[in-house]
């Protein structure tokens, strides 16, 4: 599998988010967002917000919106499962919640614990009124980012950029002997 250069696409995504006016980067650490958060840490006008659980980030983004600022919630796919009740703010309150979801339990996954939530990510988000913009190849990243940013901040929707495992590359695991 061709793994894209994490630094290159993270820089592109970060710059696109900064250009869209995003200043708060709420996150739970994941391999898929590590470089993005490093860039936020190093940037003058951006501020990373380390959370304890992903749904906190939905509320942090909503709080920023109430005073006219833009935020993004960055998480691994498993964290989507922590968010649905707080995503009531999307359908009920028309808060523009923007999410960056780095996938597990997706193409090439070797950890059986990751499949149940990974496969439920898009159905769960759709059930709560969040639009999803899936990235499978490097050239899809920029248009999908623009679409998600527009859906959230211009369209008044919840919008999730889904960074698939085809795009990110699957995490390698040591092989056990077949039993």
């Amino acid at each position, binding site marked *: 599998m061709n793994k894209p250069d994490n630094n290159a696409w993270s820089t592109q995504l970060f710059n696109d988010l900064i250009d869209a006016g995003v*200043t*708060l980067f*709420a996150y739970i650490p994941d391999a898929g967002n590590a470089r993005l958060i490093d860039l936020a840490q190093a940037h003058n006008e951006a*501020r990373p*917000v*380390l*959370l*304890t*659980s992903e*749904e*906190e*980030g*939905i*509320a*942090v*983004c*909503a*709080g*920023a*919106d*109430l*005073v*006219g*600022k833009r*935020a993004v919630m960055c998480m691994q796919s498993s964290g989507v499962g922590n968010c649905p*009740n*707080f995503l*009531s*703010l999307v359908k*009920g*309150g*028309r*808060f523009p919640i923007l999410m960056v979801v780095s996938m597990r339990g997706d193409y090439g996954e070797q950890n059986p614990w990751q499949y149940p939530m990974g496969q439920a990510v898009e159905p769960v988000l759709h059930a709560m009124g969040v639009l999803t913009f899936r990235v499978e190849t490097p050239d899809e990243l920029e248009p999908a980012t623009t679409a998600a940013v527009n859906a959230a901040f211009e369209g008044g929707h919840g919008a999730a950029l889904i960074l698939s495992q085809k795009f990110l590359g699957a995490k390698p695991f040591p092989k056990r002997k077949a039993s």
Partner: protein
Amino acid sequence: MTKPTLDRRQVLETLFPQPADHLFVSGLAGASKDAAGLTDDGDNLFTMAGTMGAAVPMGLGMALAAPEAKVAVITGDGEMLMMMGALATVASMAPANLSIVCLDNGCHGETGGQPGHTAMRTDLAKIGAGAGLPSTLTITGVDELNKGARFLQEAKGPRLLVVRITDGPATAYLRNMDPAACRLRFRNAYLGIR
């Protein structure tokens, strides 16, 4: 533990003598009714009637994004316990302009008064201190309300004030419960959009 004697309906107006000076976020049920009573459901208040646990992190987002504003979260013990980790997030981000007032009645008032953890062994101010908040205080009597008000003015932020109250009724205030309308009302007022 001292048995609380405070009626929640007489708490907030002493703690916030000038409510127009703050931006308020309130957690679901009684805390939102009391906050609506304090501000006359004003456009500097965003109340919730769901999303239990969201009050502290929403106040955090607001405090980080509006560092020039005084932001106050008004919530209950059950609501705050549901997203206890957010206290650690608040402590690490350390917004000096954030106050959290927890109206602790030791029960789930909205669903029939079922006992909560703070009626047993849980101490919210200690949890706040353990999370790393620089200032925490618990008050239990009417004679301590002014001390609580001074704490909100003077203690190093972010600060947590736990107000132990009786399990009586919240302020009888019928607030606007449409979250989309309340979002626009709050944003437009804050951003000066007419």
